[in-house]
């Protein structure tokens, strides 16, 4: 079993890029002008796509630029420059085989990012943008698993369907690791700072986080919330319980939660519209 883990780990160390959705790249390609509006639109697209965001943060934190702690897309854009970000985004590959669940995962990730931002602002936490970035990236391990272990992935999906398992447990049984750990490996190998890699690694196990427990707790709660809303597709449709430690560390209560859920509904309509716009569908939202 250790073999599988090490093999996967090695594959991740050699992974320099990941594909994203065709609609995202198509939309980016249509922004040819270099005016202010298209730069803002580019920033909006890039910061809503987990793969593009991760690739841009990787470049900003790579030894060739010599910055070590870039953890938000807006800071990465300031340091890399519009031209660099644009050419990097346009050089992205797309999923060759488009599956319905790629879009579902894309929507789930963006929605968790939005929810995390709401929670962070509500609680007046520092570094809200870092928290939403970590939340956007929290399931990046799932992209890698579906790309690099496509056979295992099929098996995982069958197990979820037939045995009603959480995706994470099915992953553990099949590949002896899970998307959180895999995402953490990628974050480390892509030079992402701890404030991003920790929430990615421990969003299912808040107690294991160290220096960034608050950020991890927010990502955990946002993840559960979005699953409970039935928004997007994170791989399984089961809603886990919010871990007690997450409530405690944030001094979060049901009152605040109710307010957030209220605000979240409007935001999710926006996310859905943005997703439909990018997927090039003209079907009405909701």
């Amino acid at each position, binding site marked *: 079993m250790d073999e599988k883990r090490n093999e996967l780990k090695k594959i991740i160390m050699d992974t320099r890029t990941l594909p994203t959705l065709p609609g995202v790249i198509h939309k980016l390609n249509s922004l040819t002008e270099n005016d202010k509006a298209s730069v803002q639109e580019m920033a909006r697209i890039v910061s809503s796509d987990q793969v593009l965001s991760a690739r841009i943060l990787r470049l900003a934190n790579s030894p060739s630029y010599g910055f070590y702690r870039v953890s938000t897309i807006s800071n990465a854009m300031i*340091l890399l420059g519009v031209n660099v970000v644009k050419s990097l985004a346009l050089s992205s590959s797309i999923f060759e085989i488009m599956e319905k669940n790629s879009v579902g995962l894309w929507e789930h990730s963006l929605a968790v990012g939005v929810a995390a931002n709401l929670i962070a602002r509500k609680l007046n936490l520092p570094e809200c943008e870092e928290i939403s970035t970590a939340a956007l990236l929290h399931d990046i391990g799932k992209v890698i698993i579906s790309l690099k272990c496509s056979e295992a992935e099929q098996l995982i999906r069958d197990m979820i369907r037939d045995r009603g398992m959480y995706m994470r447990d099915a992953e553990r049984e099949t590949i002896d690791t899970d998307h959180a750990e895999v995402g953490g490996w990628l974050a480390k190998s892509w030079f992402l700072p701890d404030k991003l890699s920790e929430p990615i690694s421990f969003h299912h196990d808040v107690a294991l986080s160290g220096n960034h427990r608050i950020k991890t707790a927010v990502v955990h709660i946002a993840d559960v919330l979005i699953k409970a809303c039935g928004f997007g597709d994170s791989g399984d449709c089961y809603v886990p319980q919010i871990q007690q430690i997450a409530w405690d560390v944030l001094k979060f209560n049901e009152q605040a939660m109710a307010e957030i859920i209220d605000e979240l509904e409007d935001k999710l309509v926006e996310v859905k519209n943005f997703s439909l716009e990018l997927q090039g569908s003209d079907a009405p939202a909701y």
Partner: protein
Amino acid sequence: MPRPTRISCVSSDAHLASHLQLRLQSKDFQVAIIPSIEGILGVFYSDPPDLLIVDLHSDPDASINLVTTLRSDSFFSTIPIIGLIAQGACNTMEWDRCPLDDFITLPLRFDELFSRISLALSRIKRIFDNNPLTRLPGNTSIQKAIEEAMATDVSVCYVDIDHFKPYNDVFGFSHGDEVIRMLARIMFNTVRDSGGGFCGHIGGDDFVFILPSARAEGVSQTIIGFFDRIVLDLFDEDTKARGYYEGTNRKGEAEQIPLLSLSIAVVPLHSPGIRHAAKVAEIAAELKKLAKESVGSRCVIDQRTAS
């Protein structure tokens, strides 16, 4: 008339050397032939040429030794060296041991040699002056850019970081270098995205950018905004909330050191009283003093009008 480019050729092949000399002179190069390798370093050190051609074919060991020795002194690292090697020898050359800028194979094709010489000289001009940390052009290029801009409707903007020295002392050079690189990128990107201009690195935490006066203030404010935001990533939550950290000042006393901020002094070149480039730096120094009097980042513009 500009000074002719001086080329030294080192070869123990007298026939090749005299032929080289003749052809190079026909292209208006000033050529010195140095037949013997011995004593050559003294000749170079006392009167360095603009470019060096070394015949690696007739005396390989001594020539490689010469190249390595010259390269080991950073002062001479900016002189391009072109090696002459036998046809096919490039496959067996250990380039790590022989730090040439370029090579050309024997028998010589002179048109190719001339092109390689021009290319080597322009390449060195391009990279010689650049700051190794930020890769921005340095003082020679800055001086030239200011002189070229004199009496036009552009502004020279001097940028430096407030409280940089204590930051370096407390957090170490590698973090200090990171701040310098960040500022360089912020400045370069902002100037380019605003429509272009010149950016240079004077040294340490001192930078310059030059652009049309109409954009000077806006770009300065954008750079300040970006820097103030990025810089927060360098401090932990407690320091950010407090707004200072503990360090020692120049006298060695414990002191509360504020977070990093920027001062920018903008000198429009069409101001009266600016007749030569040296005056620009002088005015900038006065403005900087003004900028530093206030807490936090600030941009000060030279307001002198015709009087």
